[in-house]
């Protein structure tokens, strides 16, 4: 398998694409998690589905760039709608998220059904965006993903200090003259990019887990934000690559669920066994303390 990785065209694309996805969503997911915006990622991912369908209906093209632009625009629209609902109504943020998420996703499913009924020769394959199908990645997809991902990571690296301050204390950031709302919109846009990168590999339904999982696992191992971001990228890449390769070796397995399963192994391992915050060591420490008290 290892040698095939470098020679087999499909395997190479799958491995590269899922590694990219893992790195970008892992790093950006840290900020989403620290700002308690995991649900926002979920809403944005689900909102991408109607965007993809509309882009296909309007252009008749399945070129990755066309579909990705559709997904990104829909994500943007969902964000704007969400902010408006929160501002103009008395709904709480999570109710507003739930409404936006289900409306967009429901609309997407309707469009998807319509497209597959219309029976155009080109229609097959849009449903891979539901749960992902890494085997369909071609070199062109991986290139698009690489460009988008590199841009997102560059911005994240340049504005690391600003995003850290925004995540820790947004009002203090604003008092220093860093525009909290603008930075927040920028960060959300970067998360939309991460989602777009993951569409074909993980799919819209499980994409949010790819943002939240690596960050939660990484937080267990470190108390430094910089280290957390790096670790999350590594965890994201590891689960992406292993999951994608397993799914490709079993014909017709959707990739998203397999990636999320291997991510789950990492997350559970971290929750239980990480030295300072792991539940297992916690229990052992408590038992030792109890024993000491009893022997006193």
């Amino acid at each position: 398998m290892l040698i095939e990785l470098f020679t087999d065209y499909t395997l190479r694309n799958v491995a590269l694409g899922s590694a990219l996805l893992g790195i970008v969503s892992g790093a950006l997911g840290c900020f989403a998690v620290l700002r308690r915006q995991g649900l926002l990622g979920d809403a944005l991912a689900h909102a991408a589905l109607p965007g993809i369908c509309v882009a296909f209906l309007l252009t008749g093209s399945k070129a990755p760039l066309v579909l990705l632009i559709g997904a990104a625009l829909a994500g943007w629209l969902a964000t704007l709608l969400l902010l408006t609902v929160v501002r103009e109504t008395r709904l709480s943020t999570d109710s507003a998220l739930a409404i936006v998420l289900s409306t967009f996703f429901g609309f997407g499913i309707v469009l998807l059904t319509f497209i597959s009924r219309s029976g155009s020769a080109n229609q097959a394959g849009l449903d891979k965006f539901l749960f992902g199908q890494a085997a369909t990645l071609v070199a062109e997809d991986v290139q698009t993903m690489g460009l988008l991902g590199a841009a997102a990571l560059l911005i994240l690296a340049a504005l690391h200090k600003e995003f850290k301050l925004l995540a820790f204390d947004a009002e203090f950031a604003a008092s220093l003259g860093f525009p909290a709302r603008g930075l927040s919109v920028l960060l959300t846009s970067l998360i939309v990019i991460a989602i777009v990168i993951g569409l074909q590999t993980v799919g819209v339904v499980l994409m949010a887990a790819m943002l939240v999982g690596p960050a939660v696992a990484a937080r267990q191992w470190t108390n430094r934000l910089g280290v957390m971001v790096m670790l999350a990228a590594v965890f994201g890449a590891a689960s992406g690559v292993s999951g994608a390769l397993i799914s490709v070796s079993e014909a017709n397995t959707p990739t998203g669920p397999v990636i999320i399963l291997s991510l789950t192994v990492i997350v559970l391992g971290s929750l239980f066994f990480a030295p300072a915050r792991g539940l297992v060591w916690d229990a052992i420490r408590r038992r030792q303390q109890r024993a000491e008290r009893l022997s006193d």
Partner: protein
Amino acid sequence: MSNPVEIRDLTVSYRDKPALWDIDLSIPAGRLVAIIGPNGAGKSTLIKAVLGLAPVVAGTVSIFGAPYAERRRMVGYVPQRSSVDWDFPTHALDVVMMGAYGQLGWVKRPGKTQRELAMRCLEQVGMADLADRQISQLSGGQQQRVFLARALAQDAQLYFMDEPFVGVDAVTERAIVNLLRDLRARGKTVVCVHHDLDSAPEYFDWLALLNVRLIAAGPFEITFTSDNLRKTYGGTMGAAIRHIEHFEEDRRAGPMGLRSEDEVRC
């Protein structure tokens, strides 16, 4: 030089409910100012309005004679401690360095200069030995001192602090009082939201009583009266009024300046 803070006809409103109504307030330089009022009186909102963080409906605020946006580098801010997540993955020194982000500007990362500055600020609040400690491992008082050190790193002329004494231990309370006096001695102006009527006249020398409207403002000797407190608290706070009556008796007995801190605290 203009006053550190000049507020004219300020009205702030979240949705349709006014949080502050037609405030006029001038704060003179070199004072330790307490903002006192019941819960929901708009004390935090007043600070946020000055810093451009609250929805101002009408009125103007000027800081040393200019809008806040032109005076950011002269102002330090200590938000309410409970306003942030203390389980954030960072350590004390790193939080203090955030105070220097404004001077650093966009993109540039903090370096040796900022680390040394932050270390000096931690020393000033007696926290140098905890610089590397993860912030969730600090006590409430130590977290508060980290926030104060972050404001010191802003190297400002005017400080706004939101309830710095809430939930802190006796050591921290002493440290904060000494820090406030030190700042005043260096000619800085400090504006604190304060909740404890008992300690207010001892810790501060200038008072603004607030309940959506400004009830009174000025030196304690003039403003700290049972009448004003009744107007601020709606006459419902019996305990508060009793404190004042003691204070007024004390004042009749002798001038404030002669009372040492320790006598008052016993």
